[in-house]
């Protein structure tokens, strides 16, 4: 499996990972701040659970305290592991903020990696307040803390579905010359973004192409939309 590489050379934090099927997945690693928020939620949840456990089991005498100690141990060391493996890489806090844990090759995290990254959390928390983990993730383009580095895991943002595109009906008009792939994408994107752009901005963008299209700056937006409609085609 080739290592994950940055998607572009620009300031883009997304990682490109090739799957065995020969397509590239784009993963967006989550920064320390988002992860800290998710961890805070998990911490609060665990604290509340621990208190509730102690309250209930403390009344059951020593059997209760013994059970309570075992459950506290589970909460302390296994809470993250169990949620990450059994709930598709998401502890409740991560789920709330749309994060999930995956292997570096984009596959969902398994038992071994989840156990490792959460045991090594102990070192990330040293000397206090996740100092080691914070330093490691700031020094790393994929924002991995030490446990992630050893286990080969990433915390990524769960991508959201893009908003549906609404197109205005338009008479298609072929482009006056052949377009390269990048140009075609740009024109199609212009056509799809009509509703998000102000008329002045539309004119400004399309006006750049007016001399090439052989029309005036005022006609350029409509012409560019017609070309986009032609590139898109009719169903």
């Amino acid at each position: 499996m080739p290592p994950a590489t940055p998607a572009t050379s620009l300031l883009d934090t997304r990682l490109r990972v090739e799957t065995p099927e020969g397509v590239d997945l784009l993963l967006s690693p989550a920064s320390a701040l988002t992860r800290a928020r998710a961890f805070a939620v998990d911490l609060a949840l665990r604290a509340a659970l621990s208190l509730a456990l102690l309250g209930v089991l403390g009344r059951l005498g020593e059997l209760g305290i013994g059970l309570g100690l075992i459950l506290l141990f589970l909460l302390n060391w296994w809470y993250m592991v169990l949620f990450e493996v059994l709930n598709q890489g998401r502890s409740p806090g991560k789920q709330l903020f749309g994060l999930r844990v995956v292997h570096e090759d984009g596959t969902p995290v398994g038992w071994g990696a989840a156990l490792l990254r959460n045991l090594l959390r102990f070192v990330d928390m040293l000397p206090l307040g996740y100092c080691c983990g914070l330093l490691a993730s700031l020094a790393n383009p994929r924002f991995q803390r030490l446990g992630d580095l050893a286990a080969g895991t990433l915390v990524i943002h769960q991508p959201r579905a893009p908003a549906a595109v609404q197109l205005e009906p338009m008479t298609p008009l072929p482009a006056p010359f052949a377009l390269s792939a990048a140009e075609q994408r740009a024109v199609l994107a212009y056509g799809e973004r009509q509703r998000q752009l102000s008329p002045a901005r539309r004119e400004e963008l399309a006006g750049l192409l007016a001399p090439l299209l052989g029309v005036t700056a005022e006609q350029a937006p409509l012409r560019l939309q017609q070309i986009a409609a032609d590139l898109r085609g009719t169903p």
Partner: protein
Amino acid sequence: MKQAQFETRHQADWQALAGQLKLLEQGRPLGAQAGEFAAAYRRLCQQLALAQGRAYSTSLVERLQLLTLRAHQQLYRPRQNLGPRLLGFLIHGFPRQVRAARRSILLASLLFYGSLLGMGLLVYLFPDLIYSLLSPQQVARMELMYDPDASRLGHFSERGSSDDWLMFGFYIMNNIGIAFKTFASGLLLGLGSLFFLLFNGLNIGAVAGHLLRIGYDQTFLSFVVGHGAFELTAITFAGAAGLQLGGALLAPGPRSRRAALRETARGCVGLVCGVIGLLLVAAFIEAYWSSVTQFSATVKYLVGAMLWLLVGAYFLLGGRQRQAA
């Protein structure tokens, strides 16, 4: 083919796959559709590649990329047949891993048992030395725990409790937590594991030396001999795994430190799982057998010796057959 035609042609496929994904993401089985999922995913991959190659609009490509990512997450889920894998690990995997890690285990054992015996001998010869490690209150509590007149031994014995659950819970939380820390702190160039091995060795050695000197040898030794076979072994294994992590960072060999750390860490998972198992057994024995005083010391020594032999035989002989085949 223009983009609009492409979308119309495959729209139904994408919607069907999205429906399946919704089920899978909620953890529900697909039932009869399960066989089609992988094929649908592969078709989607091809369609994504086509959409990118034909320079279709970014919004379409993004939509397909999202669908691919979601399907990829579901297709490559970790295997869930944990039971059989654990059983196989117990029968042959664990002893083999231990034998493969024998060098680091030897090192950890030397550190741990060396400090234990050395400190024990020193405290036996120079009694005041124990107060450099433990406070007088701690020493008094230790003495109370192993008082030959007590009806029960070990932690919480002063409560005179008949409830071993409390002890079981305490031992699990305390010991497995220590083992986890011993392993994890190996990431600090091995120094953390070194510290925990020596710290525990010195402490146990000091207590042992002190108790033997004041004549509590019978209660103390008959108490620790049983579960010690599992507990002490587990501590050295956890330390050995931690030392391996540190070793990977200090001497990565012909790999980058990062790659060395990842490979070593993956190899350590088995050892750590085994340590958890050993400590569970140890906690059980400690709570339900070691603390009981009905049996004579001879019986306890005999059982203890058998347990040590059992552990030794397991790691020396376990998992040999399938290796040969």
